[in-house]
């Protein structure tokens, strides 16, 4: 049976990590995508002692083990390099190292780190985007190798530049592949974010099922969510207009054997979040078991 997972950033924020994991388990999820973006240099975990760091993430790992919940992936930074800011680069290197180390302690195989994006970088030449991205990932590859966890490159969608909606440079799967190939390591993988890719379709990026085929067997983690191609809505799969049976076919074709992890907008459920997750767990189980239908 295919495993289902949940990106649980909002759940952690609402309930704390321990209760959040219990809720995910109770809701029927087999795995979680643990959000590390909540941590930052200077807080008591990322900025504290080595002992405090190890103790904290070991506790989380043990709790997951006790619950028989797999930590199938982690989420590092959405905000990566920004232009003309050396301090930011330094910060990113430090925080990415912590993310990768935490991922290793959690026993998770991979950590997502976003590409640089056009919303922050504006319209730059292709060469510059490639060069900056290469440099950024090259700077954190040694940490991935040291901690033996993979850096996951995630598919991108639309960006906003000077008020205009445009395609993000790394929404192009061939650019992603180029970046991937340029990384001189085996500690790398792809995360297909179905919603981002669907959002980029209006800029002639292929649909998610095609992108999965283009990226192939290097896709080992997922951010499944839906939209109508206009905004990054992070809707429950099926609520937008992604061709889900097509996505499942493509995942089968590349021999995908990872977790079917969904990354949903959950903040609006407020006090109803726990009940919402009980339903979402059931829904996702059926959706995944039935190959994109319910």
């Amino acid at each position, binding site marked *: 049976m295919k495993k289902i997972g949940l990106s649980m950033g909002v759940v952690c924020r609402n309930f704390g990590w321990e209760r959040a994991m219990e809720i995910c388990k109770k809701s029927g999820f087999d795995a979680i995508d643990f959000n590390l973006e909540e941590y930052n240099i200077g807080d008591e975990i990322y900025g504290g002692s080595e002992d405090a760091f190890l103790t904290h993430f070991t506790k989380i790992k043990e709790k997951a083990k006790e619950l028989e919940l797999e930590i199938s992936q982690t989420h590092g930074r959405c905000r990566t390099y920004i232009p003309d800011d050396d301090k930011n680069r330094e910060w990113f290197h430090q925080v990415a190292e912590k993310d990768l180390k935490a991922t290793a302690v959690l026993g998770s195989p991979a950590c997502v780190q976003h590409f640089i994006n056009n919303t922050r970088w504006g319209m730059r030449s292709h060469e510059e985007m490639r060069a900056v991205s290469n440099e950024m990932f090259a700077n954190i590859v040694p940490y991935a190798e040291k901690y033996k966890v993979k850096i996951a490159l995630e598919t991108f969608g639309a960006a906003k530049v000077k008020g205009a909606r445009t395609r993000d440079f790394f929404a192009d799967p061939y650019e992603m592949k180029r970046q991937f190939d340029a990384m001189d390591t085996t500690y790398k993988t792809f995360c297909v974010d179905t919603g981002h890719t669907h959002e980029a379709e209006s800029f002639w990026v292929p649909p998610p099922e095609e992108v999965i085929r283009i990226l192939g067997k290097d896709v080992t983690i997922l951010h499944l969510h839906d939209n109508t191609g206009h*905004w990054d809505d992070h809707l429950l799969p099926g609520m937008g207009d992604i061709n889900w049976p097509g996505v499942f076919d493509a995942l089968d074709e590349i021999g995908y054997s990872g977790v079917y992890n969904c990354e949903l907008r959950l903040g609006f459920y407020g006090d*109803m979040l726990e009940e*919402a997750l009980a339903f979402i767990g059931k829904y996702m189980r059926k959706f995944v078991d039935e190959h994109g239908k319910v």
Partner: protein
Amino acid sequence: MKEISISTGPLQRKYGDEKALKIAKAAGFDAVDFNLEGYGMTDDCIYHASEDAFGTYFTSLKKKAEELGIRIGQTHGRCGTFAPEKDRCDFVRFVTERDLKATMYLGSPACVIHSISTMSWGIVPPEVMREENQKMFSEFIPLAEEYRVKISQETFGDAVADGVRVLDFFGDVHELKAQHEQLETSWKTLCMDTGHVNKATAFGIMPAEEAIRLLGKDITLTHLHDNNTFSDQHLPPKMGGTINWGNVFDAFDEIGYSGTYNFELALDYFGDTLEDAVIFLGKYLRKFVDGRGIV
């Protein structure tokens, strides 16, 4: 306490009419918007049966709702109404008479009938849209008066005409208001469709809360749902939509709205989990309405 209601079309399609009512009640809804659009499409349906059979069917549904303790607060008639094609108009005449009569048997006070749409008429002079719409509703008024149920136009959004996304003519709330005022009957009301108005904002139309204030106390029915302004997603409120619900609740209070808060949601994608979804939504929407847009 404000009453909550659900448009039962997807439930009726999946489970049939009676079970749809049962599920809505079990989910905690006080009322339903009963969908009639599924009727009349085939010759063997109840709309083509004898008057007796027709009356018996809808009266028994009314009784069922009463037994369950759920009100049929409104019905939904046709979305596709008069168009330039004569056959289509003849069909709409037939089914709308049935819709209004069924509404009466169901004990519901009002039936939503869509205004004519740019989707069917294309871009034609405003006078044509106004006249044709008046003509259509003028035909329905005697039926509404005979069956003592109100006909309700609903706020509109956008349309696709010649492949281009445009404002639906009656997406202009001022046009809808003018049409409503010209109907010579007291058997009329308005249905505020929040999602449609939200889509029309992309064409400079006022947001839902302002539309509510403009249409005022003539609004006695609602189709509450949310979207991202680009597509008519019929989302549960706040789940990815852009409507300012706090403002919407304020506006309803200001006009003294005392009807049900009826949610018209796209639910078909829940498939076999539909019943579970509606049970969850009943709780979510109760909290949402009680919290005036906050959960």
